[in-house]
């Protein structure tokens, strides 16, 4: 999970992102990689990244 989100860290730290963001999980999700795009809230990802950092799971 960290590996999949690592490349997104910088992106989600940008200011003025739209609330609704589409991301592409590295290996896809589900059988036959059925889901290649997941729409989610940018503030959710920002909070997730903040928590990764606070818990020292993030490294630059």
């Amino acid at each position, binding site marked *: 999970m960290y590996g999949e989100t690592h490349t997104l860290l910088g992106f989600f730290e940008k200011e003025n992102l739209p609330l609704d963001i589409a991301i592409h999980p590295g290996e896809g*999700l589900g059988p036959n990689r059925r889901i290649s795009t997941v729409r989610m809230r940018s503030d*959710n990802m920002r909070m997730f990244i903040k928590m990764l950092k606070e818990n020292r799971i993030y490294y630059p």
Partner: protein
Amino acid sequence: MSFVWKPGTPLDEAALDRLKQHFPKPSEPPPEAWFMGNKQNYYTWVVDTDPTEVDYRTAETYLQDTGGGIKYFPDLEFAQQRWRYSFHYLLPYLVQHYDKYYLLEDLVTYFMLLYPEGIPDTYTEFRQDILDTLGSAIMRPHFWHNGDLSPFIREHDRTSWDAYSTVFFSPIVSSAMYFCLKYLKPDEIKTWCESIFEINGTHWHYHLLS
């Protein structure tokens, strides 16, 4: 309301019961999604068999076939209606009865195909019931052993494993986490993150970081 993951937590029985009450057995069977020729077959077991009595492969085949239909045939209104309803009916039975983790992955990603915009208020407790069942199923006792992911969930024995092109992470852990990142609210993300960082298992950390 805070949402946390705690290893060894069983599914919420009250939530499962509410889902069963709100989505009783359909009267008409869902059609198959992918077929060749003029005749389209139907999944009659959905309406004439107890979902907990169908074998795992039958359930898996159904979810993979109709899940593809949900994604690729959005204009088939009649089929879409039956597929969508049948999933809601089957969900509490399949998530409870089958302890194969990759069926859980099928259920999680099927739900994400059905609800790309968020979880609707189908009934008052629907969102919470989904979080307390599908969203928490990765924490079921069967998937954990001594505070870490169980050997069971670490076995990569899915016959279609090559579909993922990797054996370095468990697809269900990834799917379950994306499920939460997608459907939780920002304040719920905080408590959920705190709970997943408190899990100390070596294999859990490996999957979290891989």
